[in-house]
């Protein structure tokens, strides 16, 4: 009866297309939105991820996310260094600057100042230049997305000059750092230079990044630091989680993405539900005839489930394919860089698509199960 069930469905091209479209639409929309959302959350922690050598972050107790820091006194650094279990600790400056090109382009940037001598905190992925170049006067490194933002159409190169808050800076390296949450343009430079570009003066340290001594858990050392200073210290992974949580709890982003996802699901249920119901209603008399002929409810239910499953698989496949194409075609778009269709998302949406189809066919299935075969003889 499987063939019969599928032939019934395929025979009605208009409804079949409607059903497949409904599922594909929901799949595409939800896959795309959830992936972008996950990608955005990833950006919230990209700076933390890029500082790979540190496993402890120290900050003012009021700080709850990498994106909003509060300056600490410079003297805190030596106190942290003195805590038991701390292998090393260096300052990290993080702020925002206005960047202007010679051509007059103006962009916002996240600027990170790393320890002048060790340069710890700079990501290792140098596309052009090297970490030593950052020791040069006015030297800064920027990410490729930022470069393309400033110099549209230009090949990646070094040596160009910029103005950071009206002070001269020179690009000496291109680093493949992930785009940050606050801006697509990320600048790495020496701590001393970064502070002059932004807000010169004392007590400007945003974070202290540190490493736990071999054999000690970062959580334990972080707790030591918290106990011995007035500062807040957490492991990198805890800080990552906290920063993501901050975005989820304190911005409208989850709500707006969530709304789109829920709308996508509702529209899917509506399209699939209405179309499937119409399909079943048009065939109800025939279902009654099949019952009269001797098909049991179990059989008819199986037929409807096959039809629903067929719609679900084809629709999901097309929707997923469209989502893959979307992310393929935007892979080179910097604004959407780092947004991928994660397998977990694809898997989750598969389950959701099945739920959508099942939900929207429940009513129709009830009709099939309850239709009285005796009605076939009535006009």
């Amino acid at each position, binding site marked *: *009866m499987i*063939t*019969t069930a599928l*032939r*019934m*469905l*395929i*025979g*009605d091209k208009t409804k079949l297309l409607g059903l497949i479209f409904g599922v594909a639409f929901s799949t595409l929309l939800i896959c795309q939105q959830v992936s972008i959302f996950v990608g955005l959350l990833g950006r919230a922690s990209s700076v933390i991820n890029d500082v790979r050598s540190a496993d402890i972050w120290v900050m003012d107790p009021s700080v709850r996310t990498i994106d909003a820091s509060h300056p600490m006194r410079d003297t805190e650094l030596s106190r942290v260094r003195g805590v038991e279990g701390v292998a090393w600790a260096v300052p990290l400056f993080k702020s925002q600057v206005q960047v202007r090109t010679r051509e007059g382009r103006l962009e916002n940037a996240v600027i990170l100042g790393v320890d002048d001598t060790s340069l710890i905190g700079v990501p290792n992925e140098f596309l052009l230049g090297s970490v030593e170049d950052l020791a040069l006067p006015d030297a800064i490194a920027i990410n490729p997305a930022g470069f393309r933002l400033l110099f549209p159409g230009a090949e990646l190169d070094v040596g160009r000059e910029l103005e950071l808050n009206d002070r001269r800076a020179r690009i000496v390296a291109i680093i493949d750092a992930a785009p940050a949450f606050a801006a697509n343009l990320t600048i790495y430079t020496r701590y001393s230079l970064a502070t002059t570009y932004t807000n010169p003066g004392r007590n400007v340290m945003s974070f202290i990044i540190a490493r736990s001594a071999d054999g000690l858990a970062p959580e334990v050392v972080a707790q030591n630091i918290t106990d011995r200073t007035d500062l807040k210290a957490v492991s990198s992974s805890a800080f990552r989680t906290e920063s993501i949580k901050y975005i989820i709890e304190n911005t409208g982003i989850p709500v707006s993405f969530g709304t789109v996802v829920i709308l996508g699901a509702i529209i899917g249920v509506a399209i699939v539900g209405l179309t499937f119901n119409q399909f079943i209603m*048009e*065939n109800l*008399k*025939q279902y*009654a*005839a*099949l*019952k*009269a*002929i*001797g*098909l*049991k409810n179990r*059989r008819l239910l199986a037929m409807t489930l096959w039809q629903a499953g067929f719609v679900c698989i084809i629709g999901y496949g097309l929707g997923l394919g469209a989502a893959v194409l979307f992310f393929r075609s935007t892979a080179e778009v910097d604004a959407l860089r780092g947004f991928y269709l994660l397998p977990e998302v694809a898997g989750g949406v598969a389950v959701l698509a099945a739920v959508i189809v099942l939900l929207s066919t429940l009513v129709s299935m009830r009709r099939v199960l309850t239709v009285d*075969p*005796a009605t*076939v*003889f*009535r*006009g």
Partner: protein
Amino acid sequence: MTSTSMQHSQMHAPPAESDVVVVCRSIKKSFGEGQARVRVLRGTDFDAKAGEMTFLVGPSGCGKTTLISIIGAILSCDGGDIRVLGDDLRRMRNGQLADFRLDNFGFIFQQFNLLPALNAAENAAIPLVARGYSTRKAEGIASEMLEKLGLGEHTRKIPAQLSGGQQQRVAIARALVHSPRIVICDEPTASLDAASGQRVMELLRDAAMDHERAVIVVTHDDRIFRFADRIAHMADGTISKVERGKLESSKTPVTPKDAIP
């Protein structure tokens, strides 16, 4: 009148002959509750024999459809005895009734009730597929049956591409494809013009009649009475008389040429 009542009393004789495949005794059936209760069958007796085409005729609303629905194991009765092929339908559960229908009945409806997306062969093959035949084998057998019914060239057409008469012939093929012992038709010609109705009845008679098979036809259409072996007249929920059909015309096979005026 006397001959009719004799025939009628014959029906009350115990079903000794094994060719009496449907035996209804004092069947009662009402619909609704309380004030709205309608007593449709008030102790109806009815028999059908294998090798015969039994017509059930009577005014609209007298309970013909209700009776054949009960005989066809689709509707349960409130009282009386019903035996089909020796089995007591009242003792069967729903699932058993469905299996019983699939094994023993072929149904032909006024509105054909073919699946619109399936072609003629696929539609006619349904009872076989439902019984577990492979689609291919079932459609092969169904196509032979369609051929027999003069639809050899139309096996791949969907119902919308066929005339009403052709669709009803597909329905006949579906009703006969699994060689059921009993075929039940409710107003098989009511949706057809006179010529198509005649042709459908001829084909039904040729294809369905078999010494093992009973065919029960409910109809209003007196132009097809000549196909009946027996005609049971129903009024107010009981069988008022049973008469022999015009055997000469019904037993003589009618060629298609004669049928088209």
